[in-house]
């Protein structure tokens, strides 16, 4: 799932930044790319027409998860650009929550 990759990529980049293993512009670039990609998936998925009511229920659940993921990535990007370690740590927890949400959905679907 593309958004899981985006979340994991941003999470790894932010952790590297927190540990001083990365340059600010590099960390920012990785997180911004992940945010843009997740936003693109969100828009594309939101424009799809579900074929039946069961699919619509799944669509609603996915849209909420995608929206949470995009929002978490935006918060992470803002915190990283402000160089606010406390906010970065908080946003990382949000990203982790969004990742777990997607893992839960994946397990439900299997």
């Amino acid at each position: 799932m593309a958004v899981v990759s985006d979340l994991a990529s941003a999470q790894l980049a932010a952790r590297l930044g927190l540990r001083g293993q990365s340059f600010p512009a590099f960390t920012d670039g990785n997180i911004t790319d992940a945010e843009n990609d997740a936003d693109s998936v969100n828009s594309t998925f939101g424009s799809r027409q579900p074929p039946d009511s069961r699919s619509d229920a799944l669509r609603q659940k996915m849209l909420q998860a995608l929206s949470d993921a995009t929002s978490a990535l935006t918060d992470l990007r803002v915190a990283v650009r402000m160089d606010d370690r406390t906010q970065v740590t908080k946003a990382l927890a949000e990203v982790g929550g969004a990742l777990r949400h997607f893992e839960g959905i994946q397990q439900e679907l299997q």
Partner: protein
Amino acid sequence: MKAVMSMTLGVMTAIGGFVDIGNLVTSGITGARFGMTLTWAVLVGTIGMALFAEMAGRVTAVTRKPVFHVVRERLGVRVSMVNAGASTLLNVLTLAAELGGVSLVLQMVTGISYLIWVPLAGLAAWLVIWRMPFQWMENIFGLLGLGLIVFVVALFRLPTDWPAMWHQAIHPGVPAGQPAPTWWFYAVTLIGACLVPYQVIFFSSGGREEGWTSESMTEMRVNAFIGFPLGGLLSLAIMAAAVPVLEPAGIQVSHLNQVAVPVAVAFGRAGLAVVFVSFFAATFAAAAECALSSGYSVAQYMGWSWGKRHPPGAAARFHLICLASVIAATAFTLTTIDPVTVTIFAVVLGAAAVPLTYFPILIVANDARLMGERVNRRWANAAGSFFMLIMVVVSLASLPLLLLTKAGQ
């Protein structure tokens, strides 16, 4: 010392020719997504490139003419026009990808959008082509590009599962959960990234720039049989470094900066700094080589004076073609099409056109009238024919796979 210096061409072609934006992107994507299961594709591309580069270099050294000049003389103006036209178009597309790569590296370092850097990267590439002596260009970017060895060293610092990676490498197969057409598509991209046409044009024309003769055969063979495999090894190291870092986290590479992340995990900022310099050197050198190759192809086909060994005024039309290709590629990159997407298309279209570039080399290198005692031996013909068969299969499969997988989705 002189012998060591002359080997720099091999290092340069290994880094600038092999590890360019195509290798960086395709190795990163495949390592993160398929582990080491596509090692064979890099080996096929590397061996094919070394084999045909040796033939092209031998033709150049014996006839004292670049290989596509000989192709035109041997196969005629019409046949070689297809070759020269396809090569030039692909060179410009590849140049656009390389300029995008240079700009993405500058974006990684500065945080300023790559689109701002594209015109500056184009201008810098043209200035290097116009003003910098050929050997300076080779030595400076070749040595800086060697920084890619950091990916090899990183493997010893990362939690690399060597037995598992080795098992994947020697037991190729589509990993569980991955679609087979996509796996095959990326196999094609890896082979295409090793066999891009500008490499062989630059190699043989560069041989003339360096004044190769029959006495240069050893140097040329060292370049082809040691330099290129070294480049292939670095491609594999980039692929392998993604395996312990990106694959377990479920990260799929879709941006160039993600390819650098494993080195940041291993060595932090120091490692990243080395990656930035070596990515820049590899992509910038390849950009210069692509633009030069456009000039070489057209000027050699038209019979114009060509090469950096002449002052620009004495090879004005050659330099004009180089400049025109830089302008066209810069304009293409500025359309905001994602440079990684441009790279994927460039290597796939390159793979589709591979036989057009390589088949004439096989014919010319096998012409006893031209080559005398340096004509292809039986083993070279057998190996060349075998790889030509592979190239035809790759060529035929490339476009259907591109459409079927929506460019590797």
